[in-house]
């Protein structure tokens, strides 16, 4: 057993880390979030140059044949820098879904997605009460050998910008969930875009008989795509947790009240200890689950444990960080609240911790 990153993964981490330190500091990130741009085209281009956009795709599809642990290795850094670019959406969800399609136009889109020329989206969420594949309510109606989609998708990352969208819908009212592909701007497609609390561009999308091509209804395949994405998504959360732990630890050492650092008060010190325990738990589960997935041994319960734990522990770390910072923790200016909001958003997507932990409890 060896759960450490390989030398290659470490090198990738170092170079991505250096780039983010230099070009994605918090102030630059905040300027980006406040601007009209949904994300940084330059950063996306840079990710392409690092090979991140082609990483998870097989070599015969023009990719680099990377593994899930390769993605985890740098995704922690994405969390640490509060990256707003739609990596999980465009590459791990939209992209890998296109990759299973034999359709020629899907393959052409995939090429552009890997080079960074095009963005793919993944329309999965349907709002409150629909946290998982089984709760999908959108219906795909058969029409002349293909399908039309009707219904609404919510909080679709890059939903208004994506050139091509993969949509999860049921084949008929009682059918199984399947993946469909839709082009941006198709008839009957109306996206209302917004910025999320953690600075990402998202959209609620109304579909009114939008023509769609089926990609697959292979349950195992769809779950695999989702599970891989969830792992990378959780890696971002763990990266955000690590940033909160170190920022808060430093603050507790330097902020003085009653003539001493607040970290010397037992109430504060114990909270920091709890934050550290929480982070260690989350990261252990992340690394172990990544290895399980890589060995092909991960069950859906393992993924639920990871998603449930990172969501719950992340919220706790965020709340503890704000409390420890006192008044400054409540400001928009300091990065602390932004990490917390990222953690809340990551928790809410793909089913919040309450849902996943209950799935675990169901055995």
């Amino acid at each position: 057993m060896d759960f450490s990153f390989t030398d290659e993964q470490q090198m990738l981490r170092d170079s991505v880390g250096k780039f983010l330190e230099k070009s994605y500091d918090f102030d630059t990130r905040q300027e980006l979030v406040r601007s009209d741009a949904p994300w940084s085209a330059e950063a996306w281009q840079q990710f392409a140059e690092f090979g991140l956009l082609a990483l998870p795709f097989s070599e015969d599809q023009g990719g680099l044949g990377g593994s899930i642990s390769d993605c985890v290795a740098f995704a922690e850094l994405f969390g640490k820098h509060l990256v707003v670019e739609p990596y999980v959406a465009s590459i791990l969800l939209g992209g890998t879904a296109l990759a299973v399609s034999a359709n020629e136009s899907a393959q052409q889109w995939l090429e552009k997605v890997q080079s960074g020329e095009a963005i793919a989206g993944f329309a999965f969420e349907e709002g409150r009460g629909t946290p998982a594949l089984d709760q999908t309510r959108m219906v795909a109606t058969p029409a002349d050998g293909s399908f039309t989609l009707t219904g609404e998708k919510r909080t679709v990352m890059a939903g208004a910008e994506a050139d091509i969208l993969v949509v999860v819908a049921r084949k008929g009212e009682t059918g199984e969930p399947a993946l469909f592909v839709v082009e941006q701007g198709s008839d009957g497609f109306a996206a209302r875009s917004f910025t999320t609390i953690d600075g990402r561009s998202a959209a609620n999308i109304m579909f009114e008989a939008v023509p769609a091509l089926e990609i697959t209804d292979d349950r195992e395949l769809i779950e695999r795509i989702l599970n891989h994405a969830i792992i990378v998504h959780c890696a971002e959360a763990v990266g955000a947790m690590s940033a909160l732990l170190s920022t808060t630890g430093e603050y507790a050492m330097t902020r003085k009240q009653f003539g001493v650092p607040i970290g010397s008060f037992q109430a504060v010190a114990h909270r920091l200890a709890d934050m550290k325990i929480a982070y260690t738990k989350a990261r252990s589960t992340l690394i172990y689950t990544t290895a399980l997935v890589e060995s092909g041994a991960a069950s859906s319960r393992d993924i639920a444990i990871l998603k449930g734990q990172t969501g719950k522990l992340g919220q706790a770390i965020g709340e503890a960080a704000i409390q420890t910072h006192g008044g400054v923790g409540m400001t928009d200016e300091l990065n602390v609240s932004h990490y917390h909001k990222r953690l809340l958003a990551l928790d809410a997507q793909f089913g919040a911790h309450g849902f996943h932990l209950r799935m675990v409890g169901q055995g």
Partner: protein
Amino acid sequence: MNIDFAPELEAFRAEVADFFASAPTPAIREAGRKTTSVFAPFKECMEWHRILFEKGWIAPHWPAEHGGTGWSVEQRFIFAEEYRKADLPPLLPQSLGMVGPLLIDIGTQAQKDRYLPDILNGNDFWAQGYSEPGSGSDLASLSCRAEPDGDDYVINGSKIWTTYAHHANRMFMLVRTSKEGKKQQGITFLLLDRMDYPGMDVRPIVGLDGFPEQCEVFFDNVRVPQSGRVGEENDGWSVAKHLLKHERGGGNAASPTLTRYCQRAREAAAETRSPFGGMLADDPVFQQEMGELEADIATLGHFEKLAISGHEIARDPAFPSMNKTMNSELVQRASTVMMQVSGVDGLARQLEALRVGSNVEPLGSEFDLISMPLYLNSRATTIYAGSNEVQRDLIARTAVGS
């Protein structure tokens, strides 16, 4: 023991409910629904303040001779309950709940005459200038300096987290007038009758929900009259301690607000599917969570009613700290449930839709519009008015060896 549920109380309840159904303007109602922190949107809140003043209901907790209503404990509680049911903007605490009662207790006649009428009628809004960048929990270490000079004080330094200072026309503050002796001994309590003195600069701070609520206030040789002092020079700490009784003292019942949050969560849950079948409101796990929360809120309500009736439980020296701790943590729990019911639908940042009068439709329901900002802003409740860590230290001191 006696719980007086006199029939006239029901008539009183109906009278209050009728008034709340008819008196608020649409903008005031919108502000009430869009209140996502303890501080309601300022403009509409003050409009509503003036309407309540006209009605004679602005200060139920004040002594009747100073403009209070002379209501019984039960009436005050009924008023608070109906207030929350109607989703009206909560009144701002700084003037009515803090400096007003303080002046009634220990202000000079001249100060009472000058300030109380405008607090009641809503012409004035007072900001609370206590905290400083270096002095939060350790408030007594404050260093914003006031030097006596003729009939004036000359102030230098800064205050921070001053809520709504950018809307205020007056401010009460603590300043350092002496560095001799214990740090508590050299503090003076001052009333500033203006916010636009030469050398004063108010800069809003954007909060984590994206709106400015607190401010930083800078003083550069600001000259203010000494007649604004409350109590003696260097005795401001005891004045502030006196005011604290009103600030934390539970003069206003909090449990009706919490009950309203729970109602909203239940209403939203009734129209949300549970992933485990049926509607979320019928889901046993949700029900248990609500049950634990609502039982604690009910208990807080019992505690509050005992307290406002003058029961000995409220004469416990730890009463204000226990009240503050229970209330703040329940606000956080209730808003967390709301945020969790919204799930992904709470993730949109909707500053424009939240602004009263913007006429911008929220993306989803109004519940989803407010649940996240309410959760985020509620993180402050365990920080301000004495952090809960500091409160627990105080409570522990009264519990150990008692």
